[in-house]
Structure formats: C-alpha cells, structure tokens
C-alpha cells in the first residue's frame, strides 16, 4: 500500500457528461469531475440519486463514453471495458438460466479460457467467497445475500485489478448487507482478493465511512464532487466509536447544506419557478414525519442520522422527504438536523379537513407550478388542461425523468389539496365538479 509513487490505476480529468437537448440548454449529469484511483485504496462515491455517481462508475468501467474529458486506465486512454476491471451490480445482474458455476465462469468464457482452467478458477472463486456447495444451484434458489456473493465471485474470477461496485448492498436487508461488507473487508485486509483497488458507489453514509479509505461526496444537479474526505480509522471499524459518529454527522451536514442552495439557483432560472424539481413524496408520509417530529422524543427537532436509524430510512428516502417539507414551509433543515416550523406544528394539531386547507395554502404559496396549472384550467372555457403541455415546459428545465417525477408530485399534492382533479386516462387536469360526486355510485 506504499506504492503512491507508481502510476495511478485510473485518472479522470475534467469529465463531463451531458445530454444534448434541442430546445434548451444541455442537461448536465456530471460536470467537471476529477478522480484519481491509486493501488491499495478503497474509494467511495457518495451521493443521492441523480448525482451522477453511477454514471461516473460506468465511465470508469468503460461502458459509457463521457461527453468530454480525459479517462485514463493505467496511463492509457480508455476505449471500452478494460481487461482488469470487473463490476458488481446493485441488482446482482445474474443470468437466471445459468447455474452459479456457469454465472461465475461467464467472464472467463469471454476471455476464451480453456475448460479445465475455467473449472479450477471458478472453483477457487466460489470457495473464496463462501459459496462452496452451491455450484449447481440456480440464482432463483438463493437468498439475496447469496446472489450477491455469486456476483462478487463472478467479478473476482477474472482476477481484475479494479473492482467496481454499484450500490452492491442496497438491495439487501440490513443484517445481510453488514455480513457481506465485513466479509469483503476481511478478505481485503488479509490480501486474499486478487485486487489492487475497489471503487464503490453508495448512498449509504455509514457504509461509505465503514469501508472506504477516501470518500468523494457528490452534489446533485449537476453532479459535482462537493467534498473529499479521508477516513482515518483503521479496520475493523466500530460504528459506535464517537469519532465515527461525528464523521457520519458531518457528512449528513454536508449533504443537507447544499441541497436548498441548488434549488434556489438553477442554471437557467425560469420566471415561473418551474425549474424546481419535486419529489413525488406521498402526503401520508409527510404527515407521518411531521407527527413523529412533534411528538416525543424529538419535540420538534431531530438529528437526521438518528431519525433515519429510528425510522429505518435510507438517506435517499429521508432527504427528499425533509427537503419537500422544507420547500412547503413545514420544516427546516440545518446542519444535519430537522426542525418543525410553526406551520408544521399547526398542521400536526389540525383535523383532517383543516390539514388539507393548510396544505393547500402552503402548496399555492411555495409551488408556482400548481398555480400555473390552476390558472390555465381557469382560463380554458372547458376547464380542462392537458398534462402534456406542462410536461413539455418542465422538460425545458430538467431531464424527462425529473419532469415526470415533478409532474407526479404536483398531481398527488394537488389532488390532496383539492386544487384540481386529474384524469389519468385522458392525461388531463380539470376542476373538481360538485355534480360529478352525486352521480358516483
């Protein structure tokens, strides 16, 4: 691990990934990202969904060609998947019609390795990763944890220098994920893995702090490296160590601090405020969190990591929820904490119908898109407006996926607030009509 003077495995300079859009500015997923990977280190890319961290992983793997920037693998320009790079997938990506052994041998087959050597190497990898005895099983007979072990064995059997892991444990339950993580780190520390370096993508802060020597924290929209942290703790790490907790707290702070800023200053600010991407958070979830916050033990203020642990939420779920509450003026996010506002308290104390009214007021005050939809409906003589029109407008400012999500959020909230109705079949907004209710059976 003292080979800092040797050539880096991967070096990426000024990497940019953008999608060209006809009508408006390019949609930037990754902007001006630098990354250097040395032998002997585990690096984590930490960020929320949509921060481009998985895109960066695919660029490193050679699966994706960046729009601009320089990607070097062992000093050479990278053109396509390199020999010596293997990947582990979030969804495991096992072939359901191949047995464990056939899945593991896949990469060797592609290399044209002869049958005898294939058998030997796959046997070694299967034993190393603790799958001995499962050779002839099909993936669907295995539990999630066992499946990811197959994914791991399949990657290790080709003896790669660099292992890429795309949220490898996020589809597993907490206990299984912990076991796999510990096993992997143990093998790494005992130098039993045929690897020089590991690059892991995750949205789980604790996972990053548990595993990595270095963490790159990504900001969203566009994806940039917001922070780089070195993790000084030796393995095995203790997640209850105060220094460890402090680091997790700090990272929470980093990740919540910048989100609201991004919302206020989008690259091409539209006068209508259309450019704010919204998350389709259900109103029940919002109400639930507000109630939890107002009650004991939080009494209006909670530490985000603690809250996430208590509610068994991932950062990826909790942060959009918190941000939505902040956007609607029900709560505030500060330095890794969440506070209930006065409006939030009023909402919690209110009855069902009053809650809808309060929600409606907040929605109209803070989400211009809702007002825009309502005013279009009001102007039309038939009191109907096609959703397509708003989607198109949204897509001028954000990716189609974000536009879809934003529209879904607005539909859910607008329905709850009874500001408008939505006909999924016709994809049309309309006004609520009293007589339609009478007719219903």
């Amino acid at each position, binding site marked *: 691990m003292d080979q800092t003077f040797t050539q880096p495995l991967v070096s990426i300079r000024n990497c940019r*990934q*953008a*999608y*060209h859009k006809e009508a408006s500015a390019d949609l930037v997923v990754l902007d001006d990202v630098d990354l250097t990977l040395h032998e002997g280190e585990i690096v984590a890319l930490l960020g929320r969904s949509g921060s481009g961290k998985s895109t960066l992983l*695919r660029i490193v*793997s*050679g*699966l*994706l*060609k960046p*729009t601009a920037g320089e990607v070097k693998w062992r000093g050479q320009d990278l*053109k*396509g*998947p390199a*020999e010596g*790079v*293997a*990947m582990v*997938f*979030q*969804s*495991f*990506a096992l*072939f*359901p*019609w*191949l047995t464990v052994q056939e899945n593991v041998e*896949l*990469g060797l*087959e*592609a*290399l*044209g390795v002869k049958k005898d050597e294939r058998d030997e190497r796959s046997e070694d990898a299967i034993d190393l990763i603790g799958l001995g005895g499962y050779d002839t099983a*099909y*993936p*669907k*007979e295995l539990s999630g944890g066992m*499946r990811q072990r197959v994914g791991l064995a*399949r990657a290790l059997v*080709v003896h790669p220098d660099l292992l890429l892991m795309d949220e490898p444990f996020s589809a597993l339950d907490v206990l299984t994920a912990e076991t796999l993580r510990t096993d992997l780190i143990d093998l790494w520390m005992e130098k039993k893995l045929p690897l020089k370096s590991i690059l892991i993508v995750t949205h789980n802060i604790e996972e990053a702090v548990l595993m990595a020597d270095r963490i790159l924290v990504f900001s969203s929209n566009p994806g940039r490296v917001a922070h780089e942290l070195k993790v000084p703790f030796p393995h095995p790490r203790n997640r209850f160590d105060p220094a460890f907790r402090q680091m997790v707290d700090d990272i929470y702070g980093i990740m919540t601090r910048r989100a609201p800023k991004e919302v206020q200053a989008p690259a091409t600010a539209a006068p209508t405020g259309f450019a704010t991407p919204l998350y389709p958070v259900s109103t029940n979830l919002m109400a639930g969190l507000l109630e939890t916050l107002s009650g004991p033990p939080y009494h209006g203020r909670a530490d985000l990591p603690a809250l996430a642990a208590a509610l068994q939420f991932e950062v990826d779920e909790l942060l959009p929820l918190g941000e939505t509450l902040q956007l609607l003026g029900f709560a505030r996010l500060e330095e890794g904490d969440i506070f209930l506002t006065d409006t939030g308290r009023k909402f919690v104390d209110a009855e069902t119908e009053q809650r809808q009214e309060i929600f409606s007021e907040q929605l109209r005050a803070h989400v211009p898109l809702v007002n825009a939809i309502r005013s279009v409906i009001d102007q039309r003589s038939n009191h109907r407006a096609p959703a397509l029109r708003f989607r198109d407008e949204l897509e001028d400012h954000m990716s189609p996926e974000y536009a879809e999500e934003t529209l879904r959020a607005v539909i859910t909230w607008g329905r709850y607030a009874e500001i408008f109705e939505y006909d999924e*079949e016709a994809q049309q907004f309309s006004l609520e009509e009293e007589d339609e209710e009478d007719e219903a059976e």
Partner: protein
Amino acid sequence: MSNYTPTALAGRRLPNRWDGAALLIVMGLLLALVGVGRGTIHISLTTIQNQPIHLDPKWLPYYALRSTARMFLALLFSLLFTLTYATLAAKSRRAAMVLIPILDILQSVPILGFLTFTTVFFLGLFPGQVMGAELASVFVIFTSQAWNMAFSFYQALTTLPMDLQEASRCFRLSPWQKFWRLDVPFAMPGLVWNTMLSMSGGWFFVVASEAVTVGNTTFTLPGIGSYVATALAEKNLPAIFYAILTMLVVIFLYDQLLFRPLVAWSGKFRFETTATLSGPEPWMLKLLRRTALFQEIGDRIGAVLRSIASLRLALPAKYQVDENAEPSKLIDGLWFAVIGLIALYAGWRIIEFVSATLHWRDLGTAVLMGAFTMIRVIVLMAIAALIWVPIGVWIGLRPKATRVAQPIAQFLAAFPANLLFPPFVLMIVHFHLSPDIWLTPLMLIGTQWYVLFNVIAGAAAFPGDMKEAVANFHIKGVLWWRKVMIPGILPYFITGAITASGGAWNASIVAEVASWGNDNLTAHGLGAYIAQATNNGDTPRVVLGVVVMSCFVITFNRILWRPLYDYATRRTTLG
C-alpha cells in the same frame, strides 16, 4: 397459465408513414412472386406424376407422418427466419424502421389467398419435380408460423434487462456469446409460447396447402389434407371421419410429447428472481429429466451446444456506449430516399398491374365484399363472446373444472377446423340452408377456442382477496358482471379475441366457399371473392382482394383491438 401480449398488439407503434411504405413493399414482393409464377405457368403440371390418394384408412398413418414432417420442416425455417430477421431488426435502428412494419403487414396478409401463386412459383423453381410442390406447401405453413415468432423474439430483444446487458458488455462477451447467453434465453419463454401457438395454427394450413388447384389441374401431395380433399370429391363420409380421428391422435401426440414438455421446460428461462410455484411437471418432461438414458443423451447434446455457444467468433463489437453520438443525418436521408423509391416503384408496379384489367368499380366490389365479411366476423365475435365468456368464467372460477377444461380448449384450438367443414357442408346441402348465413360459423369454428381458453385463464387468475371482498359486499348479478368480472378478464378476453378474429378473416377464404361432390356453396364475402378469383386464375382480382383484406385486418387491429387492449391493461391493473 401464461398470458403473453398478442404480437399484433405489442409495442407502442401507431400507424405511421412506414406502414404505407411497408404495405406497398409487401404487395410488391407478392406481385413479383406472382409474376415469376405466371412466367412459369406454361410448365405443365401434369408432367409431375400425381401420386393417387388412397382412401383406405390403413394409409392414414403414413399420410399423417408426411403432413407432420412438413409441419416440422416449416418450423425449422420459421426458427431460422426468426433468429435472423428479428436480430437484424433489433440491432439496427434503420433496418427496424422497415422490417418491423413489414412484419406487421405480413401478419395481416391472408396468405391462403396466394396459395396458388406460391405453388406455381415453387413448381417453377423445380420443374417436373415433386420437390417444388412440397416446398410450396412448406412455404405456406412457414408463412402461417414465422411472423408472430419473429415478433415475439424482436419484442424480447428490445426489452433485454439493462443490468444483464451491462454485465455482458462489462465481461466483454462477444456478440455470438451474448446472443446465446443472453438474447436467446431471455426470449425463450415468449418464443416457445408463440411457436406453440404457431404450430397450433399451422395444422390448418397443413391441411389447406396439400391439395391445390391451379387452373384445371389439382395437385395433391400425400398427406391428411389431400386425403380429405379426395374424400370430399368422392363424397366418402366414413373416410372424412377417419381423417378427423387420425388428426385427433396426431394433435394429441403433439400436445403430450412436445407442447406441454416444451412450455414447462421454457419456464426455466422466465426472467424472475423468485422461484414460483408451477403446475405439475408433464410426464414427458419427467421421463426426459429422470431417465438415465435420456439424461445421458441430453447431457451430450447440451455439452456440444454449450461449447458452440461459448465460441468467441469475435467480430468487431461495440462495448462502449456513447450516448451523445447521433445517427448521421446524411445516411438517414439516403436510407429514407432508398426506401421511398422502392415503395414508389412497388406502388407503381401494383397500379400498373391492377389497372390493366381492373376498374374503380372492382375496388368498390371488393370493399363491399369486405364489408360483408366484416359483418360476419363481428357477429361471430359477439356470439362467441356471449357463449364462451360465461362458460369460461364459470370454469375459471372453479380450479377443478379449470384443470380439466383448459387442456381440452388448448387442444381443440390446435385442431384444424377445415377437417370439420364437410359435416357442416353436408347439412347445409341436405336441408337447403342459406350459405350466406350457415357457412359463417365455419370461420370461427377453429379459433373460438382461443377466446375460451384465454377467458378461463383470466378468471382463474382473478385475485382471491378480491373474490372475498366481492362476496363480503354481497355483489351479485348484473353488478357483479359489470363491475367485477368483465373488467377482471378484459385483457385476457381481448388477447383471445384478437387471435380469434384474425384467424376468422384468414379462414373466410376457405370457409365462404365449400363443396360436397358437385354441390358448390358460395357465400357473399371477400373470402369467396378471393377464392373464386384464385380458381379462375384471375390474378389482378386476387391481388386486389388480398390488399383489401389486409387493409381491413390492419384497420381492425389498429382502430379496435389495440386501443381496447391498451385501455384494458391500463385500467384493470393496479400500479
């Protein structure tokens, strides 16, 4: 019971300008076939020694074998076509723009209308040899099988899971390896299901394609179809019953030895991550899997296939995706221009060919006849729905009855309905009934089973908790049908109905004209129009009839079935 989207409805494609081009190109191709066929028609068919067909039942096993062999040969060609055509369409965006609409049109062309010309064409290729006639028959069976198989394969190739694609690229599988490791296995369940549907439909064409009349000559190939044709001509009723019996046995064997084991086996390739409870293993599959001898044979074959599949056969492959790369506008433009020119040329040839003898009046007649046939199809579908929906629902809601009835319905769907025509015809002749009305049921006799078995599947799949909720709220009678059952089975019903109505159009060509000895029965309709034009050797009218019928079928699919299917699947599924 699996339920796959009928290929005629799959995809988000709406009618677009490519359809027009595809229609012209397909018709142009068929016309070219006709042209070549006419060029060679002077070769006397009688130079080929017609083997006489014996009506003695002891010949039937031999005839059955010959017919079955034709079927499997056609299946082989269909598979080859599927693996190449669909792959090409899936890998090349430009090819897909033309190939897929062409496939869509081909699906709707009533291939029976071209029976004579394909026969003459192949006879021309092998003058004086039985080979030509055999190939012609195989070709007709092929055209009844290939399109939906290719469609289902294309469908699978365009919906390959992203993560498996990335894994194949990341581990740098060669295109050949990826094809056998990812593409084919992923497509397998749908492909097997469609192959089985194709074969079920194929028996109909096996029977129809063996005895072909061109002008004054009737050409007969040894097989069950010729046997029936001869029996009809000789008014031999017992022989017809022997033929029906033989066919029942053949279909039963095919069902037990092939259909069931294959469909059960293909479950292995279903893309799901949890082991699902499946039905009992068919006895044939059990035999193959558990018997040492068969296992040994299977392993040997498997090993050879695997080693072929794992060959690299390296071609230059694109492993890295550049999402910013845009297709060259210039090449696109050239490509469009070439396609446009070909379509224009085909269009010009069609007009030239048809206008030499035909008048606008003829188009009017053909459309009017099409309208008659359309009314028949609609009335038949309505009657079939009224009869089979209640029965299917009744059966589907009772697991015991389902287990008994479902295989029978599938079995009956495979039975070639044209073997059942003679008894009907006999009755019509005997009681002097109006052919316009009483020939009609023949069109649906073979395909109505698709409605039945899909409705059974739908009712059987109706969720148990919803049944309990319905019972809890005492929902009964009309309300139960309107709010619960009909929405519950709608997607399944439509899946069956599209197959049935498509089959009915095609069957009209043989069902609207029937004969018993010297008694000829004709109904008014496009099917009879095409059949008569064929008999008279009136090529332009055959072309016209086929074009009009294709247009009717396509319009029917696009305007009625596709929106209905979309609506049903959207409205009746949660989430």
